[in-house]
């Protein structure tokens, strides 16, 4: 039996993460509404979770456990099985630029979807790094006394809030690109549902 591109554990963690991120982002938007950082950036109730601030806070501080537990499991799995090394490394700047050029000329090949191109690798590594910083800024906001050293990393309490907001923005942009590309090349979506891209190779 050949190895699946996305073993069951990866698929379960991927969709659990999608759920956790949906909860964290939409409840976070409601929490933000009580004291907006940027006057013009607002989130209407229709796209937020929690109803009122207290409900949103309950969702946020419940979703964080799923998010962190699932994320830890994913990192341990990725390191232990060699998946990160196999799929995400190496990222060579020259190849990265060449792939960007190909993509801009609409000549990006995706004959073998089981191997990520350098842009994909950079995006996935990048969003993992942002996710890590997001956890740190989240802890800095949650516990600015017990974890005062973390809050200090971001300047002060409001600095941590801004970092947390910018991290959210970057992740939402990533999800937008990620989901758009998955819909343009549906075999990738099939792979995350069934384990393999299927179709023509």
């Amino acid at each position: 039996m050949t190895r699946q591109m996305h073993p069951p554990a990866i698929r379960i963690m991927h969709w659990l993460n999608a759920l956790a991120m949906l909860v964290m982002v939409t409840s976070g938007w409601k929490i933000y509404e009580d004291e907006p950082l940027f006057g013009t950036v607002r989130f209407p109730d229709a796209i937020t979770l929690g109803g009122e601030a207290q409900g949103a806070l309950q969702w946020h501080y419940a979703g964080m456990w799923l998010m962190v537990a699932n994320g830890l499991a994913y990192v341990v799995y990725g390191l232990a099985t060699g998946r990160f090394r196999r799929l995400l490394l190496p990222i060579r700047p020259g190849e990265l630029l060449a792939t960007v050029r190909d993509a801009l000329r609409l000549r990006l090949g995706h004959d073998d979807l089981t191997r990520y191109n350098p842009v994909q690798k950079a995006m996935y590594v990048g969003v993992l790094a942002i996710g890590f910083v997001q956890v740190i800024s989240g802890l800095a906001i949650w516990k600015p006394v017990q974890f005062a050293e973390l809050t200090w990393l971001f300047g002060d309490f409001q600095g941590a809030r801004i970092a947390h907001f910018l991290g959210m923005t970057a992740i939402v942009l990533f999800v937008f690109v990620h989901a758009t590309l998955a819909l343009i090349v549906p075999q990738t979506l099939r792979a995350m549902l069934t384990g393999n891209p299927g179709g023509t190779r």
Partner: protein
Amino acid sequence: MTKPPSASRFRPARRLASLSDHGGLVAEIDRRRLLRGGFSLGALAMLTGCDVTDDDAVQRGLRAVSGWNDRVQAALFRPDKLAPTYDRAQVVRPPRFNAYYGIEDVEPVDGAAWRLELAGLIGDRRPWTLREINALPAQTWIYRHVCVEGWDYIGQWSGPNFRLFLERIGADLTAKYVAFRCADGYTGSIDMPSALHPQTILATGYADEPIADPFGYPLRLRTAVKLGFKNPKWITAIEVTNSYPGGYWEDRGFNWFSGL
């Protein structure tokens, strides 16, 4: 720079009370909201006629996790970890107002007639006058006030250390909770370890002046290790107890421990 008083959640309590007199209108608005919510992420749950968070089972689950988070925060709490402190030049004057109503609705407390009642697991439950409170040795702290809404400011608070006060009245320092009742009907409670934290005081002064009426005159709690709403103002009674006392916002779904 001070920001204008928040016009958000800390006001609606009264507005909602008057709205309940117009049940029909409210129901109509709710129906409209339901229609608008058709595009919302909670649309699926709304099809069955309820908001995700309002559903009983979901609500129970979220409250259970909130209770778990209380225990996690108690475990994370380090009794000797001091909050960062700041210079006098950084102190914001006046402090930022917040309550469950607007600043214009504050009813000043008469300091001369005011008494601090004591109840529960306390050796000497004799009430205190303001003169007696002011005779206790005071300390001054300049630390950050962080509101659950997301704003913060640096304030300078002075008054007797709360641990010293609890020892003076013979409180059972092994009890679980310290609960507060306030002149405006507000209630709150904190865990004993936070009450005994070195930076927790019964504040009577702000920026070298007596606390002004809107900010809790004559007596309020200030602690560096809790969110703002855990710092009751205009305190009229303190109880030491082992049975969970809850509080105004805690009973409305905000996390009880709310430690910083």
